[in-house]
């Protein structure tokens, strides 16, 4: 039986390359100061969904929530084989904690249509909380399989799955629909296909077209610009390259559960920590210096 799969992906700041101005005074991340990357675990979630579709038929829809620039990860999904992609972008979603984020994503999943399996990555590298997947499952009224590694069997509305809990593994039977959070050991993500890149690199969300046209046609009148926007959006739609774009109204989100209002947690304060220099000893990188240090450590019984 064919399966309709939804994958939630996130564009994250590359925490491996954090620089000094990466944090704002209020403790939130200055995303602009960091290169943005496809959250690594989400690539495995995408691959797991593509593998299900390739074997059983069905479709893969990728969803992301974020600023307009997050369409970059959606194009990446298209390059790797997703059938359909959607961006949820809304200023009112800013400052959402994991609870508000999971609510918004759950609404988006409901909006894009019927589904059998929702795939998330295990966690995102910018917070490592691993909370959004389980919270979405609860909001959608679905069972959750965290640390998903493999479908041992998938037939009709029943799945037998293996999850890896670090110090062991489990096999579980679950009825679909289900939400899984995918481990990086689940699979090896396929690379982008050159043919798909050629085709999908022009894919844009309508708001991106607005921006491009506004920048390119500064001298034009409003109506000329509008005509150009309509033409470009129409052409993309005809080629199946228009990235679906939703705001909170489109997904029927109740604003009281979104953004700051919907976030029970707040950042109270951020501190730069002052490191204690007390009792510090500089050791020369020489045989002599090292020998002396080892000697001291033996004398005070730290070693031996």
């Amino acid at each position, binding site marked *: 039986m064919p399966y309709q799969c939804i994958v939630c992906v996130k564009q994250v700041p590359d925490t491996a390359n954090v620089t000094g101005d990466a944090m704002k005074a209020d403790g939130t991340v200055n995303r602009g100061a960091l290169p943005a990357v496809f959250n690594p675990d989400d690539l495995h979630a995408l691959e797991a969904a593509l593998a299900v579709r390739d074997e059983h038929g069905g479709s893969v829809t990728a969803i992301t929530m974020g600023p307009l620039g997050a369409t970059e990860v959606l194009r990446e999904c298209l390059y790797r084989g997703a059938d359909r992609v959607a961006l949820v972008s809304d200023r009112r979603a800013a400052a959402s904690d994991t609870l508000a984020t999971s609510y918004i994503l759950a609404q988006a999943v409901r909006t894009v249509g019927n589904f059998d399996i929702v795939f998330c990555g295990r966690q995102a590298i910018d917070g490592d*909380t691993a909370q959004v997947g389980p919270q979405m499952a609860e909001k959608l009224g679905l069972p959750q399989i965290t640390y998903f590694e493999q479908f041992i069997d998938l037939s009709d509305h029943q799945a037998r799955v293996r999850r890896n809990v670090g110090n062991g593994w489990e096999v579980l039977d679950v009825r679909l629909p289900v939400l899984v959070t995918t481990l990086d050991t689940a699979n090896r993500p396929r690379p982008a296909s050159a043919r798909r890149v050629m085709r999908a690199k022009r894919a844009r969300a309508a708001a991106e077209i607005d921006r491009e046209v506004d920048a390119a046609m500064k001298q034009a009148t409003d109506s000329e610009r509008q005509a150009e926007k309509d033409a470009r959006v129409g052409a993309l739609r005809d080629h199946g390259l228009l990235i679906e774009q939703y705001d909170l109204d489109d997904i029927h989100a109740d604003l009281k559960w979104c953004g700051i209002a919907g976030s029970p947690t707040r950042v109270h304060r951020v501190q730069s920590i002052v490191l204690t220099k007390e009792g510090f000893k500089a050791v020369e990188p020489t045989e002599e210096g090292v020998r002396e240090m080892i000697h001291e450590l033996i004398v005070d019984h730290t070693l031996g």
Partner: protein
Amino acid sequence: MIEPNRQGEVWVFAEQEDEHLSDVSLELCGKARELADRLNVSMGAVLIGWNVRELSYRLIALGADNVYHVHDTRLEHYRTLPYARVMCQLIQKHEPQIVLYGATAQGRDLAPRIASAMRAGLTADCTDLDIGAYTEPKTKTVHENLLLQVRPAFGGNIIATIINCDRWPQMATVREGVMRLNDADPGRRGQIVEEAIEFDDFDLSVKLIERHREKRTVDLKAARTIVAGGAGVANAQDFQLIHELAGAIGGAVGASRGAVDAGYISKEYQVGQTGTTVRPALYIACGVSGAVQHRAGMEESAKIIAINWDKDAPIFGVAHYGIVGDLRKVIPMMIKAIRQKD
């Protein structure tokens, strides 16, 4: 969600597997006891399973005033949905003000499910917990005696304190090893409160077919000396140096996330906020820059040696001995110096 309830208890989810309480649950009892004393309320532990009633005494000895015990064959092995049902019902019934979970595979699966169902806040991987006041910036409303949930925020030397003023319970997960294990007091008195929970078909819809657990292979917490390699080791071959030094000292090998991400060593060896927290007698950091998330897991080591060729690396700020130099040269010198001693 429950309303702020100042008389509410401080709870620990007492995670057990195969009739053993997880280390982190035991550690959390000490912290929860301390927080409860600060707030002048009782401390509770929720113990779920089958044939695990005996474990209640351990929880009481470590500080619990009340152990809420839920006993059902269907709860023998952890499964998300029935465990979440138990926790949500008990939270609604007893309205604890704080609920703490270990940031284990089980805790990280369960706590967010509960947080979502309760529409309550949850902070992951806290490195410290405290009680304090919070003033809302706009309204200047002061909230006294909130749980201050301290967690490193990424991006250098920053520690964020997270609070949840009105959508309770206040919930947090904590990694194993972060809180100190208190001495058990076998003379402490506490109550075992038996609770019965009803399940519906959905709660029981996921079936456990097979289950396998391995003995812990990497036990960094028990090591007296740890030699940790970072991304500065630069390749898998040079990582052998870390193993050699550990071998020479008779210590264990650890790693930063930089080294784990680079594929020099597996994730079980990671020290830090999202790895293991360690307090060995000696910690030797080689080619580790000393990001706050790494330091959170090792800065309480009794002695720290840092080897890094960048004299401004933050790791030197927590080190007792700092060697500014190339680890590929310094480590062999150390191995030699140690061997010459015997």
